[in-house]
């Protein structure tokens, strides 16, 4: 039953932090659900990591598939993990790396009998590729959710303004807001800025809400965000 401090645990500025991803993974009684969730969230990052190790498309897909079915589900990877050693994402990354190295060793052994493995040129930083793919997916999911929410709430123009002003490449040319207002039938620039600010606020809440499953404090969320910014901007993260 809910405790007194659960009063705002589901939302709002002062909500308590929900259990982190580790807690869900370790205590969920449904292994199929765990696997489905892990695949949904991490398949693409794992695949990108394997590609950046120099594997070809098909081989990376096969290895990613094998990792989730053999290692994650078959060997109950999650329950063998030592959560004291850090973030789940980092743990998964180490596991993928070990799995790939082991699989490549085996394929090299058999390569003399069959064809050579499909190995291309390795990227500079496979770990950065993993994080990039993960953050990419996070942004896409938040934007999809935001768009859907705007549509459901009759704020399509809000969404269009947000998209125009923040997502479209043209915004980098510093186009006048008055033109944007004209395009979408908004009275004036002040109203448009207010509408954009409204959607930005929602974007912020949705993104931070998703990250709260990975961090146990507001500071932890900000660290995650700064790390993702560093991945995309090529700058080292400030803690």
């Amino acid at each position, binding site marked *: *039953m*809910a405790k*007194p401090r*659960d*009063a*705002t*645990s*589901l*939302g*709002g500025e*002062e909500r308590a932090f*929900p*259990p982190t991803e580790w807690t*869900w993974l370790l*205590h*969920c009684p*449904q292994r199929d*659900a*765990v696997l*489905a*969730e892990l*695949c*949904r969230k991490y*398949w*693409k990052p794992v*695949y990108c990591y394997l590609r950046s190790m120099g594997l070809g498309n098909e081989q990376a*897909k096969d290895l*990613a*598939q094998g990792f989730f079915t053999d290692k994650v589900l078959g060997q109950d990877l999650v329950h063998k993990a030592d959560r004291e050693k850090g973030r789940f994402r980092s743990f998964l990354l180490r596991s993928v790396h070990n799995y790939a190295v082991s699989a490549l060793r085996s394929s090299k052994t058999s390569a003399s009998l069959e064809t050579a493995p499909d190995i291309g040129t390795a990227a500079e930083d496979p770990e950065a590729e993993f994080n990039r793919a993960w*953050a*990419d*997916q996070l*942004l*896409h999911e938040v934007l*999809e959710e935001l768009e859907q*929410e705007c549509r*459901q*709430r009759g704020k399509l123009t809000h969404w269009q303004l947000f998209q125009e002003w*923040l997502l479209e*490449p043209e915004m*980098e040319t510093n186009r006048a807001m008055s033109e944007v207002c004209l395009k979408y039938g908004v009275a004036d620039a002040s109203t448009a800025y*207010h509408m954009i*600010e*409204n959607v*930005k*606020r*929602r*974007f*912020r*809440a949705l*993104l*931070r*809400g998703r*990250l709260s499953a990975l961090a146990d404090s507001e500071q932890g969320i900000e660290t995650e*965000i700064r790390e*993702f*910014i560093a991945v*995309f*901007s*090529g700058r080292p993260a400030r803690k």
Partner: protein
Amino acid sequence: MLGDAVAERMDNWALNDGQKTRLLSLALERDSSAAAPNEDEQKGDLLRNILRCALPLEASASSAAAVAGPSSSGPRTVAGPPLGELLRDRATDLAVLKQIKEYTKALGRNAKSGIERDVFAAVYFAAIAAARVFHNEHVTEHTDERLVRFLHAFAQAAWMPADLAGLFFQAAKHRLPEMPPAGPSQE
């Protein structure tokens, strides 16, 4: 292949690194007071946050099988389906609806503002409405007349998502086969 579906979903957006950085930076900014949402917007935001969450583990442990029933569909996390999905799915077990009702009732008791209280009450009544529409069950001590008044009020609230408003309207119109005798409300 598992990854094909993921890759397809990702193709809907094509953002460059500068745009991604800008978006992520938004999440580090503080909310602007100039864009402070009005009360309806705040209620709508909070309600959507709640509907997106799963029942807490301690509240759902006893009915994990019911929550994960085969007829449920839609987005799902290891924590279980979101409350919004449970409330809208006619296959959701009655026991789960009662858990949602009790859970949000407890949250409402500790609400820190009128906005929170209204939103928790909305989810509380949505669980009652779902029990009424999908299971023909009256799971509250409110009299039918009083309950219908609440259902109409929530159905017409400006901040209510359309599908939940529909559920409230349906519940208000729904006649139960057998009603308990009317008495003073204790809720």
